[in-house]
């Protein structure tokens, strides 16, 4: 059993070490809900049997550069005789019109899954290619393959410039627990979300915003000044305590993001959230993977959230209380427990209500 575990760890570490950065594989993606594991396994098994096909597919993806478009990849794949004949047979057999993506998907999805398994494509590049084969509505949100590859290449250059640790590791924001939605694309990791939603200049700008946010957090003193007579000299300075300084920095960050997205400046309508800022800073190498890993786990990093269970509990309590109070007879007996529970809840809320002491709130 121990030997098996050791073997598994060894294989896993080999796999991690083996990830080689390529134009279409950033080695930063670890999780995706969009790529079927069984389809990937089937594609790998089936294409591995055909050595010639395998060689030709590998060749196409190995030759890909950051300028390669998805059309060029599809065109090259369709030049492989076995795939070409499969595509032609599909077109003759099916009732779909020739413009339809059905036959293209039927023919090319397997080589794409195979290339993902062979680590010639990372999860994000795979999602982009698969979206180009299926749904044009989804495809609109993924952007082009070349734009993704260019973005990744520029970000990697910046990462290597800012971080001493040059080994490529999975982004801490490529994990299952932070999944989010972008347009028609659901269950994206924050990294995928940011890379689909923003271009390189926007990501770089987010990095700058995050840097000034960091400087404010690290500042040893901060405060508000008052110039009573407008002579340019501060007549009164109110120093902020650490907690208020943090809340003010978060508030300033929010205002800055809101302003930049509303004013049609750099973000023009697509306001980044805190995860986007973290992804941008991490991809640019401004925050190390280790630092980001501990930061994303922190509660109250951005603002406190009410859990869905708490919300559900509040609604159930309100309905239940209303129902009991409407039953004659039972309502009289329920008063004492209801008042006791509500008094307890109110006292807890009052205990937690400290915003009157805060100059800034989230």
């Amino acid at each position, binding site marked *: 059993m121990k030997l098996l575990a050791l073997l598994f760890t060894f294989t896993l570490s080999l796999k991690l070490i083996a990830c080689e950065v390529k134009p279409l594989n950033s080695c930063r993606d670890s999780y995706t809900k969009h790529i079927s594991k069984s389809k990937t396994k089937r594609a790998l098994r089936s294409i591995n049997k055909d050595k010639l096909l395998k060689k030709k597919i590998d060749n196409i993806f190995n030759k890909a550069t950051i300028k390669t478009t998805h059309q060029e990849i599809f065109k090259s794949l369709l030049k492989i005789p076995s795939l070409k004949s499969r595509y032609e047979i599909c077109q003759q057999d099916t009732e779909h019109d020739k413009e339809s993506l059905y036959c293209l998907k039927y023919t090319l999805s397997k080589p794409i899954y195979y290339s993902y398994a062979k680590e010639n494509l990372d999860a994000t590049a795979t999602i982009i290619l698969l979206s180009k084969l299926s749904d044009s509505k989804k495809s609109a949100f993924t952007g082009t393959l070349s734009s993704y590859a260019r973005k990744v290449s520029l970000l990697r250059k910046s990462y290597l410039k800012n971080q001493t640790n040059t080994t490529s590791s999975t982004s801490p924001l490529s994990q299952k627990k932070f999944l989010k939605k972008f347009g028609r694309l659901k269950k994206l990791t924050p990294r995928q979300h940011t890379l689909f939603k923003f271009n390189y200049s926007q990501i770089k700008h987010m990095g700058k915003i995050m840097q000034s946010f960091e400087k404010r*957090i690290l500042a040893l003193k901060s405060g508000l000044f008052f110039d009573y007579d407008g002579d340019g000299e501060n007549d009164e300075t109110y120093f902020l305590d650490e907690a208020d300084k943090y809340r003010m920095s978060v508030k300033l960050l929010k205002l800055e993001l809101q302003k930049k997205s509303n004013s049609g400046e750099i973000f023009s309508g697509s306001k980044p959230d805190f995860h986007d800022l973290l992804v941008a800073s991490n991809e640019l190498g401004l925050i190390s993977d280790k630092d980001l890993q501990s930061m994303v786990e922190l509660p109250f*990093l951005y603002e406190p959230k009410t859990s869905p269970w708490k919300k559900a509990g509040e609604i159930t309590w309100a309905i239940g209380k209303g129902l009991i109070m409407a039953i004659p007879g039972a*309502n009289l007996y329920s*008063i004492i427990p209801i008042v006791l529970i509500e008094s307890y809840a109110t006292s807890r809320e009052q205990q*937690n209500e400290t915003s009157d002491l805060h100059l800034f709130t989230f």
Partner: protein
Amino acid sequence: MKLLIFIYLLSSSLFAFESDCKALVRNHKRKLIVKTVKIKDLVSKTHFHGRYFKVLKRNSEDAIAFNSPDSFRACTVYYHSTLAKDYFKNNFELKRLQRPRAIKLRIEMNLGFEESVHMMHENNGLFYNNAVTIPPSTNSRIIDKPWFYEIWFAPKKPVKIDSSIYRASELVTSGPFMSSLLLGVGQSQATTIGIDLIRGTEFGAGFYTKTLALSIGVTAIVPSLLKWLSKPFKQTLYLDSAMIPEVIYHEYSHYALSEFLSIDKHAPVVEGVANYFAAIIGKTDSILDSTRGHSKGLVEISAKDTKNYKYSMEDKKYAQLDFSFKFLYAIKKTFGQEVGTSIIFNAIKLLSNRTGRELKSDLIPALKEAITKNHNSITNHFKFNSLLQEFGF
């Protein structure tokens, strides 16, 4: 002079003895058990008198003998004080511990402390269920003999206080709570009348008036009756401070850190820091847990949950409450024991330059400065800020 110090140090290290005695210690389940322990650094072969500690009974100046009836209590105090001393000596550079000078540990000490006379006369009242660290004599001393730091462990004495039922019923019968109850009765009665009217099954105004009067009467009388009935039942409160390891660690922490945190300032920060180190030495996250037979009726100080900051928590009256301990312990949980304790210790050092001892305006800036000076990273600052928000600062 240097030669004399050298000879003293050499002789004291050469003539330090060890001995076995029975003490109260915690087992792996944190239960208090009697165990034979080894006590060290003794300068006497027959008495609890060592290089670092001298255990005395009440106002006596003679160390307690190994064969005395108080030896169990004396051994417990000596043993745990040594553990606390070793922790501070091994982990921090403290002037106080570099030059060993025995501090007096007084057990069964029921006299009060007064800075001009050291021990107060019995006529000024006797003290129980407490432990206190005594600062050394100052210029205000009016007696001949000066004194150094001492720790006084008062004897246990059961004290009767109002029962929890009585206190709860007192709360229920208080103004705001009772008015909520009566309002609730009125609302339910109104709902019943409304539903009866809709159904067409109303009983007439007289019936409803009687029911309402009865309901209000019962609601108002029951809690008052409960309060009255529970009045004779009292709850017992006591603390055998010399027999609880964390209390001994707490008091020793006051002494060890007194070069930074003066012990005469009985502030929540000072008590929180002493509780923090008591918990670290005792490898626990709560003080006064599992102390059956040695403490009763006192609230356990636990780090298990968080509390929100309120300005009233700065009040000396609440110094022994758990907020500052919870907050400091959360630093340990967030940063890990090594980094967390280093941050807290460095912050305490920085606090010695400040006159104030407030949580918000003194401790937090000191903690921030300690992080910046010794553990400066954006993650640590985010971790610290996240904690501040969690505790409602």
